[in-house]
């Protein structure tokens, strides 16, 4: 489904900070993949390279066998197929919950109807179905800033689902939530991967969640993949490698 080939990213010119170094990952359709690593390991950059919110310095990214490029029209189509969920939810606070979810449908339209904030009946049906999937349909008409953090994140998931994507990227989706709500949100994400066959890539920094939810884990440390395998094989040794890197590499950490 998604293939990353030797993706590298350096911020701030050639002598800048190296965020990703030759990352190659292949993700199958419908897989629930957790990318595990401490903060600053390059997890967010990796995700943003996939939908080109960040332009990678080198390497290729293939979605469904086609390369994701930065050419405007192709990029919009690619982004439509990739939903994204953020740590800070990133809902538009003054718009209603429904309008937030409907904004996931924008890539299906030109800007003329958007000029009047207009969507057609099918869009609305999809949006409400997505809200129902995360059990938020009863709050559809409230303003987004009246919701709690967990509720906002569920709405954000519904927004990603409304794109009818093939892939969902979840960038630290539970880092701002307390454990109970976090498990609830992760359960929704996992269900989605299972029931709708959507591939989910999820960034986490907590090992216990990775063990609990992941089928497969990619361990990232200082922009390099140090582990790739089923969550059962996450031994203390490997965790040591992910979280406490060897001293010789420590000085070029961003």
């Amino acid at each position: 489904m998604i293939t990353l080939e030797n993706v590298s990213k350096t911020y701030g010119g050639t002598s800048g900070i190296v965020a990703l170094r030759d990352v190659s990952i292949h993700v199958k359709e419908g897989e629930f993949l957790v990318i595990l690593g401490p903060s600053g390991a390059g997890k967010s950059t990796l995700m943003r390279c996939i939908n080109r919110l960040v332009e990678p310095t080198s390497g290729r990214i293939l979605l469904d066998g086609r390369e994701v490029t930065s050419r405007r029209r192709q990029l919009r189509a690619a982004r439509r197929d990739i939903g994204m969920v953020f740590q800070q939810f990133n809902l538009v606070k003054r718009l209603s919950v429904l309008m937030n979810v409907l904004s996931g449908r924008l890539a299906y339209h030109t800007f003329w109807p958007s000029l009047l904030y207009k969507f057609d009946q099918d869009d609305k049906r999809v949006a409400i179905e997505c809200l129902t999937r995360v059990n938020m349909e009863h709050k559809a008409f409230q303003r987004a800033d009246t919701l709690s953090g967990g509720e906002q994140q569920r709405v954000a998931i519904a927004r990603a689902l409304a794109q009818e994507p093939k892939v969902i990227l979840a960038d630290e989706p539970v880092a701002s939530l307390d454990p109970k709500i976090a498990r609830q949100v992760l359960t929704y994400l996992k269900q989605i991967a299972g029931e709708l066959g959507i591939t989910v890539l999820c960034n986490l920094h907590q090992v216990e969640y990775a063990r609990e939810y992941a089928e497969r884990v990619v361990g990232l440390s200082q922009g390099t993949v140090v582990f790739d395998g089923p969550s059962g094989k996450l031994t203390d040794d490997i965790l040591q490698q992910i979280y406490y890197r060897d001293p010789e590499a420590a000085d070029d950490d961003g």
Partner: protein
Amino acid sequence: MTTVDESVAAALQLEAIRRRRRLVKALGWGSLALAVLWFTAREIGLNPFALVQGADHMWDFLTRMFPPDLSYILFLGRATVETIQIAVWGTLLAVVFSIPLSLLAARNTTPLIRIPWFNEHWERLGLHLLVFHVTRMFLNVLRGINELIFALIFVSAVGLGPFAGVLAIAVHATGMLSKFCGEEIEGVDRGQVEAMQATGASKMQVILFAVIPQAIPAFISYSIFRFDVSIRSATVLGLVGAGGLGFSLIKTLKLFRYHETATCILVIFLLVWATDWVCSKWRAKVI
């Protein structure tokens, strides 16, 4: 137990109702706004065609201004300096007047009027804040009247010249500055005030050590902003004879020396632009 489809249908229906209601509301307000705009446009003779028709006048005016007579800059040195001097003293006087006035114009620092056995009724009527209310009203008068109007009045009271301009700017800026700072003083952090009260400090000491330090940065920043505005005002005070570049502007205009008028406008633009740049750097340094 409702099925998913049913609840989706119900939500869609609800959405349609809400949208209709929103549409009605938007149409209502929209048509009201349009009516107001249409009516006022007619009253003031707003007419886009007049602009088009006037275009050749404007073009004529512009071509007679171009090219600006750059040698006239030499004659504008004195007026430019005077403009700056007016703004400096106008703002400075306003800053000086504002220190006491903004303390009087804040509920938490204004002197309260108390009458021993009558206090309860007195306070219910808000009369213990009499000084505050009178000050605010006075400041509103200063704020409400444009500096050019003050300049006009002062010019006819004390004669032509920059002195009237300084007073005009000082008076109007005092109103602006004091009201703003009064509100800033009312918004200070209560915690620090309480901490100071808890040490047994007197009211005056609380104001000096807990209230004023908190309000100072905003006061300085706003004073700098006011200087920026004063420069801009000082460029037009001359239109009513109160000194500065505006006087050269109107003089050259009346004498139909449009090339020189263009130079005046150019100098005004450069002065305002430079002041804006300096003031924004200065403010960034203070905050």
